[in-house]
């Protein structure tokens, strides 16, 4: 608990601290870490708690980002997103646009989830991967929105009371979003719903014998995770002010998965640590060597082999599930 408080305090004071050190640039990196932490926690909700190993989670991340980018693009152009069957104007207000991004991602997650969850284990891994690739190719050839070139936002979205183009404001918004989602996830995993999800991870057959239609609950979990990833996508679109199909590429899903496992799956703070470690490592290694993947690869293997609960496990010595 003390650690939690000191970590929160550190995160709250980070911009001031960095300003004092003259390292304002790092605020932007910190926001990026928070956003990736959000998507990593959302993946962990289904992976660590629900036992659903998805290699296509970046698809929802990308969809959320694209929804924001497309509407913002049209809002800047003054052209409608849709003119038939009804006129849908462009938008750049975060309070409408971001929920829309969440909704669209959730809808897509419902469709992909309903199909993928008919299978499990290795099938599930490969099917989620293939669906994400399908979306990737769809957006690569979607010429109206830049295709492979991606789409630039001309400005960040409007948010009442905040100036998102200010890195510090944006940082606090990301921090708040992550904080709220962590709280939701914390309640979720120990709620009745969370019990069912964790039970399905451990022993799905038994859950059914007890009387749970597990498919529905797993699908709900898949949709919640997809929706949260969509929100993270909306944030990353605003952060980089740019989206591209690369966001949905399967290797990007792989990176998010790596963050979860590196930090410790089945824990809530593990993925946050994982995202931070991965992104910082990437920055630092890239400064020292061009061949950073030569070192990162074996490091991942070692984590898979020896660090069952990732960094979180090493730091706390705790088992999973004790949230």
């Amino acid at each position, binding site marked *: 608990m003390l650690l939690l408080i000191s970590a929160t305090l550190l995160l709250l004071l980070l911009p001031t601290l*960095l300003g004092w050190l003259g390292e304002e640039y790092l605020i*932007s990196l910190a926001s990026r870490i928070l956003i990736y932490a959000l998507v990593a926690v959302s993946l962990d909700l289904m992976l660590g708690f629900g036992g659903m190993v998805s290699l296509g989670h970046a698809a929802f991340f990308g969809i959320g980002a694209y929804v924001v980018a497309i509407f913002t693009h049209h809002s800047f152009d003054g052209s409608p997103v849709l003119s038939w069957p009804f006129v849908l104007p462009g938008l750049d207000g975060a309070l409408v646009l971001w929920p829309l991004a969440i909704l669209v991602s959730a809808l897509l997650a419902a469709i992909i989830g309903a199909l993928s969850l008919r299978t499990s284990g290795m099938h599930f891994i490969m099917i989620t991967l293939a669906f994400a690739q399908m979306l990737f190719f769809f957006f690569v050839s979607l*010429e109206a929105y830049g*295709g492979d070139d*991606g789409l*630039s936002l001309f400005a960040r979205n409007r948010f009442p009371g905040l100036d998102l183009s200010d890195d510090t404001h944006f940082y606090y918004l990301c921090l708040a979003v992550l904080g709220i989602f962590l709280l939701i996830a914390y309640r979720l995993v120990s709620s009745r719903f969370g019990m069912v999800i964790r039970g399905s991870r451990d022993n799905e057959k038994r859950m059914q014998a007890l009387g749970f239609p597990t498919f529905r609950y797993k699908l709900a979990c898949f949709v919640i995770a997809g929706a949260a990833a969509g929100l993270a996508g909306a944030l990353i679109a605003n952060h980089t002010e740019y989206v*591209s199909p690369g966001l949905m590429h399967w290797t990007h899903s792989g990176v998010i998965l790596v963050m979860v496992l590196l930090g410790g799956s089945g824990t809530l703070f593990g993925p946050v640590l994982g995202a931070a470690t991965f992104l910082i490592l990437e920055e630092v290694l890239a*400064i020292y060597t*061009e061949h950073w993947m030569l070192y990162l690869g074996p490091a991942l293997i070692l984590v898979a082999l020896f660090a069952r609960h990732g960094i979180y496990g090493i730091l706390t010595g705790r088992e999973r599930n004790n949230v």
Partner: protein
Amino acid sequence: MKKIFLALFCIVIIIPATAWSLDPVKIGMVTTLSTKAGYLGEEVRDGFRLALAQGGGKLGGIPVELVVEDDGADPGKARQIADRFIKRDKVKIMTGIIFSNVAIAVVPRVVSSDVIYISPNAGPSLLAGKGCDPNYFNVAYQNDNLDEVVGQYVNEAGFTNVYLLAPNYPAGKDHIAGFKRYYQGQIAGEVYTKLDQSDYAAEIATMRAGNPDALFFFLPGGMGINFLKQFDQSGLNRTIPVFGPAFSFDERLLQAVGSAALGVKNGSQWTHDLDNPANRQFVAAFRETYGRTPTLYASQGYDAARLIASALKSVNGDVAQLTALRTALRAADFESVRGNFTFSSNQHPIQNLYIREVVQDEAGIFTNKTLKAVFTEHSNAYVGECAMGE
């Protein structure tokens, strides 16, 4: 838990420590060194470094520190690196981007932060037209240039029924459009393939059925190798002459294609056999330093460095004088390895464009031979769209 905060603090402290020597002019190079296209960035970087080494670590007599980082061909990542260069390293001049989609993502942000960007490769139409900017210079080519020259040549050579092939993404369509701008004959077929496709048997069979008298294709990197090998094996290369922009025919790629590319005519703004003093000197020095023949990318990296050198000399290393620096750059007062070189009003090259042929030299190495200059002092199609307000 404490350990991680300690580690975090260390990193926060260590990163800046590496960046505390502000004497030389810092030039930030964001380029692609990993992924399949990694050799392109390597060429640009090596070309640039050669110029730097020849000046003894100085460009135009001004000490320069070159910071190179790999963007992995990922626009998001490139943007992040650019941010760091600008905000933390206080870089005033940037260069290096290979891919158009990366450039489109990064350049607007760079130039709006009052940082000069010199493109050593990517030349998307957006940045030449509507998105042009006084802080953006392209020292390589506007993307369409290399297709336009082929279109013109195919016309002159009397072909009237050409088949077109490109990947299904915006750059693919741009290159086809560039070709069509000067080509006047019929189109036998226009096919867009999946990005990163490896098997082209279906397209080749359809092409045979279309019975064209020539083929124009744009398939960069591995896609081009795949296609050329398979096209060669199909035997069609004996009946249908092949044309394309230089991207699938640089000297490093050619070694991987082998004889399959022999005889292909491609459009370029530079070849190692161009006969001018600057070029002779460059090619010899590059071969000596790196043990290989430079590609056009290397020449572009080299020219980028020499352009910067001329401007640095002119402002005497004071990169804070943005206006003076821009004026000096626009003068393009350097000896380009391409010979005559000036900037158009949208700050893209006005230069000669050549058709060259893939041949095998005496040593058995596959390389390009310049055939003729199709355009002299050619500008680009987007000058009119660019409203540079200065």
